[in-house]
């Protein structure tokens, strides 16, 4: 391999992170992972409200308890600054002038009220990229509406096709909406920065969390747009090869057809010749006898352990999944080998935990965790000296 500088692709860029919660801060952190210098501006005293999000280390100072905050904010320096105060405007101007990308997640119009609207920011720095990450975007009838992960999954259509036909729609677990939007806001920011540099003319990127979710419905939407069909939720008795978790003696498996191996490989895996018969191996035939196929598969795995079947099947190139929990993932041999987790020490919580730390391997400009998340206002003096001296 040629000499690798091992520096992130965005080394030398400065990102001003005015955002809070999950989506915006996650986006800003991803830019930091690529090497950007990220300055996080937080409201004084309480800081980003993500500092109150679970899981919490209760014996730490109030604003430093959140482990989730630590995950969303490494590679950043913190400056507590009240953006509402006119007295702070000249400092904000200096910060903006020395930044390449600003990420914000205020309710549309809020920055304008404070004299910090996108037009003002672009006037200060014409090549700037401002990325706004909000629930419904900057325009349109829902722009001022309130939202939660749950209501976003409802209104985007995601929930309509999740769950069982005779029960209520079911949301994706945890807080998926905000992470999806964070991923989108990060790449859209780098994209707009690339465009802004080429044209020497800035950009305002308006990311809608709602639309990030609606963008995932490529199949569901084409059912309607090409056929007029409105999809519902999953059948009470599902095709066992559509990914529904199937119980084993220990854990759950998920099956799918169409891997590198022919369907008949299942006969070998389970020592059951039935899988070679046309009534099971032909997709249209199999679809006619879903309950029968399901019962057979359930019987085959009932006395096995899920992970063991997963490994044996995957080695035969069958498409299998095994339902894994946090505990399983933390001890997964593959993630370990890929170095998917970084151990990060934090003095405020006196913790040394493993955090998921890499999205992809870039051969020349790997991502990195260079500094732990900041304590509220930790870098005030350093940032002010730096910004002041450059002004």
């Amino acid at each position, binding site marked *: 391999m040629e000499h690798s500088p091992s520096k992130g692709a965005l080394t030398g860029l400065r990102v001003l992170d005015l955002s809070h919660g999950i989506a915006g801060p996650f986006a800003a952190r991803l830019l930091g992972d690529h090497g950007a210098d990220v300055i996080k501006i937080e409201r004084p005293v309480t800081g980003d409200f993500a500092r109150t999000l679970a899981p919490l280390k209760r014996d730490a100072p109030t604003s430093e308890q959140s482990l989730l905050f630590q*995950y969303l904010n490494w590679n950043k320096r913190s400056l507590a600054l009240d953006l509402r105060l006119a007295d702070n405007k000249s400092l904000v101007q200096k910060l903006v002038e020395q930044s390449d990308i600003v990420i914000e997640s205020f309710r549309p119009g809020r920055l304008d009220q404070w004299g910090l609207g996108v037009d003002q920011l672009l006037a200060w720095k014409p090549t700037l990229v401002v990325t706004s990450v909000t629930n419904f975007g900057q325009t349109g009838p*829902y722009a001022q509406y309130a939202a*939660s992960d749950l*209501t976003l999954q409802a*209104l*985007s259509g*995601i929930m*309509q*096709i999740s769950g069982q036909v005779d029960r209520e*729609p*079911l*949301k994706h*677990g*945890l807080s998926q909406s905000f992470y999806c939007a964070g*991923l989108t806001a990060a790449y*859209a920011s*780098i994209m707009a920065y*690339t465009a802004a540099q080429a044209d020497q*003319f800035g950009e305002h*990127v*308006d990311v809608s969390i709602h*639309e990030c979710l*609606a*963008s*995932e*419905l*490529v*199949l569901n*939407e084409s*059912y309607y*747009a*090409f*056929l*007029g*069909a*409105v*999809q519902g*939720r999953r059948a009470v008795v599902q095709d066992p090869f559509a*990914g529904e*978790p199937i119980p084993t003696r220990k854990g*759950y498996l*998920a099956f799918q057809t169409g891997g590198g191996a022919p369907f008949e490989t299942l006969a070998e895996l389970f020592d059951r010749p039935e899988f070679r018969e046309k009534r099971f191996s032909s997709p249209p035939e199999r679809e006619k006898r879903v309950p029968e196929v399901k019962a057979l598969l359930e019987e085959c795995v009932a006395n096995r352990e899920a992970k063991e079947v997963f490994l044996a099947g995957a080695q035969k190139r069958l*498409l299998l*999944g095994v*339902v894994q*929990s*946090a505990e399983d*993932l933390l001890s997964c041999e*593959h993630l370990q080998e*890929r170095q998917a987790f970084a151990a990060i020490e934090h003095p405020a919580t006196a913790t040394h935990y*493993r*955090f*998921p730390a890499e*999205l*992809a*391997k*870039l051969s*020349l*400009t790997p*991502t990195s965790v260079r500094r732990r998340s900041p304590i509220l206002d930790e870098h005030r003096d350093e940032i002010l000296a730096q910004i002041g001296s450059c002004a």
Partner: protein
Amino acid sequence: MTKVTLPLTGIRVLDLSYVFAVPYMAGLLSDLGAEVIKIEAPHKLDQTRGRAFGPYLDNDPAQDPWNRSGIFYVVNRGKRSLAMDLSQPEGQEIFRALVAKSDIVLENFTPRVMRKWGLHYDELKKIKPSLIMLSNTGYGSTGPWSSFPSQGTTLEATMGITFYTGYRGDKPWKVGQSYPDFIACWAGLNGLWAAIAHMRKTGQGQWVDVGMYQLGVALMPEPLLQKQLDGTEPIRMGNEHAEHVPSNLYQTKGTDQWLALSIHTDDQWATLTTLMQKAELASDPRFSTAAARQLHRDAVNAVVAAWCLTHTPQALFEQLQAHGIAAAPVLNSRDLLQDPHLKHRNFYETVTHPEPIGERPIIGRPYKLRFRDAHIKKPGPRFGEDNDSILREIIGKTPEQISALKDSNIVSDFPTNPGLSGTMDTESMLKLKTLIAVDHDYRTK
């Protein structure tokens, strides 16, 4: 005013990928000005052109089902199609010639495939040092599971999302449709854009190795950290929230109509009790604080559920939002296309396809640019639609050479092994309720 440009104008992308994640990345790049060439195997159809994913236009496979699949046109918008066999030396040679004239290669074969064909990044960068290549695989190019096959449907379980999804007290539940593919799409675009930014600065290309499996943990830090903190795990609780009560889905007036509602503060709870005409509950010690409502979850849910049942989701949506409360109906695919907000933002772009498909709404992008005109530039390609023009214009093949390539099935205008096609059994799906309606007048809605 300065002239602004789309950031990928003049950039050529070779897209060798199948199904959702990487094809969608490439489609989104075409919206930003890139010329994207989809290279498809004559003998192995992209699954999104086939029966497995359908649906075919008007549920009719006709004579050329591979040109009638809706999903294909969504994720492959803006591309040209070259149907060429990369497993043959002649196909590989043409591919190398194309790489010399391209900037980005995207692929999602299992790791051994490109290496077997001599088309691994280490080989391709010799042809074009500034080349950026992205490989998206289930498990990445290294590690003990790297050769395992994978697709989103089953990967969702392995990557952890399934474990934390499900009805209260029930088993783990699979969600949505190929959710991991979309995470991979957004995450892959992150790596790709970082590589593009670096290339613009230095002229250096690089290889982006995405393993979809490890993206799961990046989107579920909460249980990973909770486990390390105190050894516990979040429990599956359907649509509810561990702290906010009420935050749940409630049935409303109408058939299969639902309202999602989240109360985040005690003040919002007080507002809700007034709207429900049960103001006395605001000061009831069982409900007045967040901590109390967590203890009386079932009672809170019962009160809200009874109220919602007597109203339409639209009325509740408007009324609650007018009071600053997070609420929303569950929209289906028909509702989404008619949603006034998405319409206002032109989220679905009208794209004119050749007949018989014609004008169809296609999902745009989850972001808007204020100054630059990102848009779907053309419909997705019919199979092998651009075979001749690509071979002629980009690498100077003569008509005779092109005919010879077609005679030997290196290049083909038709799939040589199209597999099964067929109509979707909409009648029985309606009976099972996996479809809730089929609107024959859908084009005019």
